[in-house]
Structure formats: structure tokens, C-alpha cells
């Protein structure tokens, strides 16, 4: 069988469709911001930005940028009707205090027990953490959005992270361009794969043990 990996937008759409009406959601910088473009129009979903916004809206039309209204990636955004501004300490109380339902974060690696490495590649890079560690420990559900494999073909889902950790045992679900994988007490469960890829092929590419989706119901 042949398969085609999901594009970034297809992956963003898959994640967006899994976000329930009424959820308070933080989208991490980088790839996760794409999820905001695919939120179902018939659901009210509250986007939170660490720099003090709830009810964040899409990017403004060209020429209408307001540089006092930016997202975590420092890009101009808008505020939905009913949205609110607040200061940083309140914003991180929302994040750390368990008030956010979902944080969608990028990652370099996720371990079989849900350890997350997404802030630093180590070595010579300038270290920069931002709000990643606060989201990792604070959101009720940490979902990772990433490519399944590195550019050189290695699995980003690993037995133990080799990059510096952001949080320990924090990831609940991994969305990749090949599959959706739940981190459960029994291990990683491949709950949904893209069409055309067999479980055996997914297992071969992933390198660490996966359980088939039926295992979740039995768990």
C-alpha cells in the first residue's frame, strides 16, 4: 500500500476538528499557529495568548496591523468581540493553574512516557524557553503537533528524549503527519493513522513500541 503524509495544513485541520466547542486553547509558536486557521466555524473556541489575550482572532487585513496587539510569536493579530486583555501574571495563572483545556505545542522529541523536548536543541544554540515549560505543566491536555520523522528519517517519538526536557510526563496526545498517538499508562496507542499506512509500517518507522487502536478501549 502507498500513503502520502499529511501536509501541515491537513494536520492542522485534523487537530482543529478535535477541539470541542467552548475549549480554552493555547497554540504554541511555529507550526501550531496553523491550527487557528482551521477551527470549525460553527464552534466558539477561545484562543489564549500568553502575552495577555483571550478571544484572540485571526491576523488583521494588510494595512490594519496594530503592533500593540500581537501574539506569542510577536505577529499582529485581532481580538474577537467579547475578547479580553490582561497582564502577564494573570495570563500565566491561566496557563499554570490548569485553566486551559488544551495546549498545542511543537516538539523536537516526545518520549514513550510523554516527556516533552521542545525548547532547546542544546549545544551552541541560544537557549530560549518563553512560556513552553509553563504550558507543559499547566494545560489540562498537552497535544504535540510535529512531523513524525526528522529530516534524516529518525523517529521523533523516542524511548528517552536526548534533547533538553521541557516537562516530564506531560504529553497526552501526539499528532503527526502519519498518525494520532495517545500517551496512555499502558504505552503509546496509535489511535488513528493516515489512510494507506499499515500498523506494521507505522510501527517500523516509529521505532518504539506502539499498541493498535483497539488497545485503548481495553485499557
Amino acid at each position, binding site marked *: 500500500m502507498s500513503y502520502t503524509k499529511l501536509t501541515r495544513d491537513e494536520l492542522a485541520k485534523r487537530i482543529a476538528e478535535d477541539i470541542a466547542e467552548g475549549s480554552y486553547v493555547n497554540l*504554541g*509558536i*511555529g*507550526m501550531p*499557529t496553523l491550527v487557528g486557521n482551521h477551527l470549525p466555524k460553527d464552534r466558539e473556541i477561545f484562543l489564549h*495568548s*500568553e*502575552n*495577555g*489575550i483571550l478571544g484572540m482572532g485571526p491576523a488583521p487585513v494588510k494595512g490594519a*496591523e*496594530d*503592533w*500593540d*496587539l*500581537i501574539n*506569542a*510569536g*510577536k*505577529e499582529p493579530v485581532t*481580538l474577537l468581540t467579547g475578547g479580553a*486583555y*490582561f*497582564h*502577564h*501574571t494573570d*495570563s*500565566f495563572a491561566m*496557563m*499554570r493553574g490548569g485553566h486551559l483545556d488544551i495546549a498545542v*505545542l*511543537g*516538539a*523536537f522529541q516526545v518520549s514513550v512516557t510523554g516527556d516533552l523536548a*521542545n525548547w*532547546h536543541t542544546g549545544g551552541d*544554540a*541560544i*537557549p*530560549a*524557553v*518563553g*512560556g*513552553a*515549560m*509553563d504550558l507543559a*505543566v*499547566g494545560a489540562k491536555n498537552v497535544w504535540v503537533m*510535529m512531523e513524525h520523522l526528522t529530516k534524516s528519517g529518525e523517529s521523533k517519538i523516542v524511548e528517552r528524549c536526548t534533547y*533538553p*526536557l*521541557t*516537562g*516530564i510526563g506531560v504529553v497526552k496526545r501526539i499528532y503527526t503527519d502519519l498518525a494520532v498517538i495517545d500517551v496512555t499508562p499502558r504505552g503509546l496507542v496509535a489511535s488513528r493513522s493516515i489512510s494507506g499506512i499499515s500498523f506494521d509500517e507505522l510501527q517500523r518507522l516509529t521505532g518504539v513500541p506502539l499498541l493498535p487502536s483497539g488497545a485503548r478501549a481495553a485499557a
Partner: protein
Amino acid sequence: MIDKIVPSLEAALADVRDGSTILVGGFGGAGVPEELVDALIAQGAKDLTIVNNNAGNGEVGVAALLKAGRVRKIVCSYPRLADGYVFEALYRAGKVELELVPQGTLSERMRAAGAGIGAFYTPTSYGTDLAKGKETRVIDGKHHVLEHPLHGDVALVKAERGDRWGNLVYRKSARNFGPTMASAAKCTIAQVYEIVELGALDPECIVTPGIFITRVVKVPRKAGGNRVPAGGVTRGISGRAAV
């Protein structure tokens, strides 16, 4: 009559001393008190510890202060900006010290300083490189890290308008660290675009009450609105600018 309004940026900063810890508001380009930072460069204080979420971008604000050689140490959460080359060069040359703090911990450490809290336990950073050497404790089955307050000698914040008692309101996400930093320093200086009469700010909506403010200085609005940061976006997880 209490009047915290000072006539000039120079007057606002006259007593800043070498070796001070200075809390500088702003997140990316929003809420950065650029006029106060520029005036601080002119004022000449050196050997400073700067607390800011970022480490400056381009050659304005904190980056300009770094370039002028006035900064001994930066305490921040995210020094890696697409246009953060001034910090990067100084850091790689060992000319500026970096204390990297998770953003929520940075904010809460200043809140603790302003609120008279001795120290606090947070789950953030447990088990990571940023918790190395710190005391930890299990509370309700969850691992926590002990963090200490972060006090400023001076805080520089940007607000939208203020009155002579120092009451402030901010604008949109430019509020960010302003209210917390205002509470955490011995001397807090606010730059505002408008000074209004007492009573003109709705008491229900004042964000920073004047007790936290030492001085207020009016600055002119920039032509064309807020400065568009040149390449001041954050690099995303992919290493590219977030899109």
C-alpha cells in the same frame, strides 16, 4: 498636592545608579518603554542588570542599551529573536551574562517581589535544566521547584494614559509585564502618551493604582503609530520565523 508627573525623561531617570537592577516592560515590541530606555542610555548608568522578557531586537530599546555596553546581565525568558543579533554577539563573546527563566516564573517572581512573598513553589521547570541546583518539594503528589522573588531597583513601564497620582491604564497586549513590574521595584517610572485630570480614569478600570508608581512622564506619540519591529518576530519551533 501630590504630583508624580515629571517634566522630562532626563528628570525621570536622574537618580538611576550604576549596578542597578532595572525591570523593563514589554513583550517583543509591544509595551516596550522605548523613550525611557533611550533616555537611560543618555543618562549613562552602567553595569546594569536588565530584566525583560526578551533581549532586544534590531538596535532599539534593550538592544540599544546592550550595544552601548551598559548591561552586565540579562534576566529573560526568550533572548532568541529573529533580529536579536546584538544580544547574540555579546553573549557569544562572553560580554553579557544570561539568566534564563521560564516566562511564567519570571512574571511570578516579580509578582512575589511586589507582593512581599518570601519565595514560592512552582511545578514549572521541574526535572529540566532550568531547575538544576534548586530546592524541590512534592506537594499534593506533584513535583515543585522553589523560586525566589525578583526585585528591581527601578522599573520602566509603558502605559497609555495616567494621572498625577500615578494611576495607569494600558493599551491592548502592550499591558503585558507592566502592572507586575510596576509593583516589584523601589522606583517605578511610567511613560504615557496622555496625562489626564484626576477622576478622568474610571476607577473601576484603573489597571495599575498609583501606589505602585513613583513618576509619570509624558512622551509624544510616534508618527504613524507604534513602531513596527524590524524582523522582531520569534523564531518558531522549526527554527524559522513563526508564520
